[in-house]
C-alpha cells in the first residue's frame, strides 16, 4: 500500500461493490469479514486486533483496481492472505503489553457487575430463567443438569447450548454498552 494512500468514500464504495452488488448484502458481508478478522488477530494474541483488521481492509481496498481484473475467488480468502502479511509485520514490531492496573480493574469489575444486574433485568423472564438455569451448575453436575433442561424443553442439548450462549452474548454486549455509557 502506498504511504500516502487514504481511504476515501469512493474507494470504500468500490470495496462494497466488489463484495456484493446488493448494497445491504455487501454491508453485511463487510461487517462479517471485519469481525472475523478481529477474531483471528485476537486469537493470534495480538494486542491491537481491531487496528490490524482495519489495516487489512485498507490494504485490500487500496489494491482493488488490481483485484477487480486479476482475482477470481472468494473475497474473504483474499482478505485472509493480506491479513497474514499484516500479522507478519506486527510480529516484527510486537508491542509490549501494558502492565495491568489493578485498582482500575477492580473498579471496572464492580461497574460491570452493576451493569450486569441492569442488563439481566432487561431480559424477558423466559430468557432470564433459561440463562440462570443453564449456567448454574459445575463440572459433572452441569452436564446432567443441562440434559434435564433440554429434555424438559424437548430440544437437543446443542440447541439449548446455542440458545443459552446467544442470551449470554447479548448480556455481554449490553454490559459493554452500559460500561461505555457510564464512562461518558
Amino acid at each position, binding site marked *: 500500500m502506498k504511504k500516502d494512500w487514504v481511504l476515501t468514500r469512493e474507494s470504500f464504495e468500490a470495496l462494497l461493490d466488489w463484495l456484493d452488488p446488493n448494497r445491504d448484502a455487501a454491508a453485511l458481508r463487510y461487517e*462479517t469479514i471485519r469481525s*472475523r*478478522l*478481529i*477474531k*483471528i488477530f*485476537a*486469537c*493470534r*494474541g*495480538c*494486542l491491537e*486486533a481491531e487496528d490490524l483488521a482495519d489495516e487489512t481492509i485498507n490494504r485490500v481496498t487500496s489494491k482493488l483496481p488490481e483485484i477487480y481484473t486479476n482475482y477470481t475467488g*472468494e473475497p*474473504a*480468502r483474499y482478505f*485472509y492472505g493480506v491479513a497474514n502479511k499484516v500479522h507478519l509485520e506486527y*510480529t*516484527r*514490531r*510486537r*508491542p*509490549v*503489553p501494558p*502492565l*495491568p492496573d*489493578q485498582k482500575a*480493574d477492580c473498579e*471496572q*469489575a464492580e461497574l*460491570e*457487575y452493576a451493569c*450486569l*444486574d441492569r442488563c*439481566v433485568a432487561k431480559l424477558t*423472564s*423466559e430468557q432470564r*430463567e*433459561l440463562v*440462570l*438455569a443453564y*449456567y*448454574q451448575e*459445575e*463440572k459433572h453436575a452441569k452436564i446432567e443438569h443441562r440434559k434435564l*433442561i433440554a429434555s*424438559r*424443553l*424437548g430440544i437437543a442439548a*446443542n440447541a439449548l*447450548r*446455542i*440458545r443459552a*450462549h446467544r442470551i*449470554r*452474548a447479548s*448480556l*455481554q454486549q449490553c*454490559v*459493554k454498552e452500559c460500561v461505555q455509557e457510564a464512562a461518558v
Partner: protein
Amino acid sequence: METNGTQQQTIRDYLLGSLLAEQQAQFEERLLTSDQVYEELVIVEDELIDEYLREELPAPERERFESHFLAAPEHQEKVRFARAFTKYVAAESTVRPQEGAAIPLSERETIEFPKPTTGRPPKSGWLGFPPIRNPIYGYALAAGVLLLVVGVSWFAWRNLNSGPRDPGRVLSFVLTPGLSRGDAEGGNRLTVPADTGTIRLQLLLPEYRHESYEASLVDAEGRTVITDRNLPKQLANGQPGVVLDVSASLVPAGDYRVKLNGLNPDGNSESVASYSFRIQKP
C-alpha cells in the same frame, strides 16, 4: 467433515494456540467463510473461559490459556465479563428455585413449568416445607438452612473473589546475559512475594541482530517451564532487550535459566544468550 466433538477440539486447540501452522491456516479460512464455525468458536471460547474460572482446566491447558489466550485484550475483557457473570449466577442460584418459570421452546412457543404465586420466586419459601406442620420445627429448620446458605455463600464469595488465576502483582526484573548457573548464587536473585501474579523478565541484549526472538525457561533439572515466541522488544535503561512474562505460579523457589534464541528471516534460529537466576521467597 468433522464431527461436533472433533470440531470443538480443533477450536479449543486453536484458541489455546496449539494447532500446527498448516492446521491453523486451514481453520482460519473456514472461520472466515463459515457462519457455523464462527458461532461455534465463540461458544467454545465462553466454555473455555468458564472452565478456566472454575479451575477445571488441566494444568497444560491452563498454562496455554494464560500465556496465549489471555494475551489479547478482547479475551481479557471476556474473562472479566465471565467472572462477573459467574458471580451473578452463583448469587442468583442461592435465592432462585430452578423451576417455576416458562422457558422458551422456540421464538413463539413456551413450556410452562409450575409457577410460584408471585412473579419473582419466593425467597422465604422454606417455612412452607409441607411435611413440617409445627412452626417451631419449621423455624429451626429455616435457621439451619439459613446458616448453611450463609456458609456456602461466604465460601463461594471467597472463591470467586480470590479468582483462580488473578493476574496479581507484576514484578519486573532486568537480567543481564552470560551468568552461569553458579553465578546465580550471588548474581541474579529475584525475591518474589507470595502475592506476585506475573514475573516480567527484561532480558538485556548487546544489540538487536535478529528479526524476532524466542525464549525457553528451564528449571534446575533441565525441564522446560515455558517457551514463548515473538518476544516484544523493549529498551531497559536505554539498552536493547526483550520481555518475557512468566506466571509466578509456574516458578517455585529454585534456580532457572532462560535460553534466548534469535530468529533469522529464513526461519533458522540461533542461540543468542542465556540468563541464570534464582527465585527466592522473602
